[in-house]
């Protein structure tokens, strides 16, 4: 049996990669994708814990998180589309009308 810590460390790595990707990428869509990676890292952690605790609750929660991710994707992509229609760009640094 694979030790639970492997899964946990994998989830931490995925989470951090998501964070790094958020800062490295420059378009809104991929930044959003990075957030999806972070969410998935959370899912992995949940399932790893669920197995370690021998409880199904973690899996149910992951089910909900996937639903949330789907809902976020719908609204997020709509917003990105709206931005693209207005500005013809989805570069993150072009979102700078307001500051100070």
């Amino acid at each position: 049996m694979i030790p639970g810590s492997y899964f946990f460390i994998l989830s931490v790595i995925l989470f951090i990669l998501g964070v790094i990707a958020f800062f490295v990428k420059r378009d809104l869509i991929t930044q959003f994708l990075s957030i999806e990676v972070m969410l998935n890292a959370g899912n992995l952690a949940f399932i790893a814990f669920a197995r370690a605790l021998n409880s199904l609750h973690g899996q149910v929660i992951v089910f909900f998180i996937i639903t949330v991710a789907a809902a976020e994707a719908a609204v997020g992509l709509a917003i990105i589309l709206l931005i693209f229609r207005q500005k013809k760009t989805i570069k993150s640094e072009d979102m700078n009308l307001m500051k100070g």
Partner: protein
Amino acid sequence: MAHFLFFLLAIVCVGAVVGMIFSRNQAYNALLLVLAFAALGGIFGLLSAPFIAVVQIIIYAGAIMVLFIFVIMMINLREGIPPEKKKWTIYLSAVLAFILIVELILAARGSFQALTGPGGEEIASPKALGKLLFTEYLYPFEITSILIIAALVGAIILVKKKEEE
């Protein structure tokens, strides 16, 4: 065998995400993530969560990522957007991410023992999961319906063409 499968899937998963970080084409980004999430689904399977594994592959890798790809197609940028040029942002975020990883692992180091503890072998049947979902988690399950409606309404409101346009 299980170990081998785990490392294979883990490498595929991490590799795909790293590939996304370095790629400059958004369609590739999304496809790489499909790969990563599919691999993650496999890992879920290894963790005795077959139902979630299937959900992960069908909903996440299938539906959600396809949505992304659709939008990327619609936007269809001529040239890709390369990664961040400002070096200091990358370095700073890398340093911060490194600190974060250390912090998270430090936080969990005491629990590694518990994570590998016995009793994790029981296969969670979809039946048991479904039962839990419709009894103890009935209320949150219903809430997800509100969530999805709200998301749909929000998405439609933002992108629909107005009548006068």
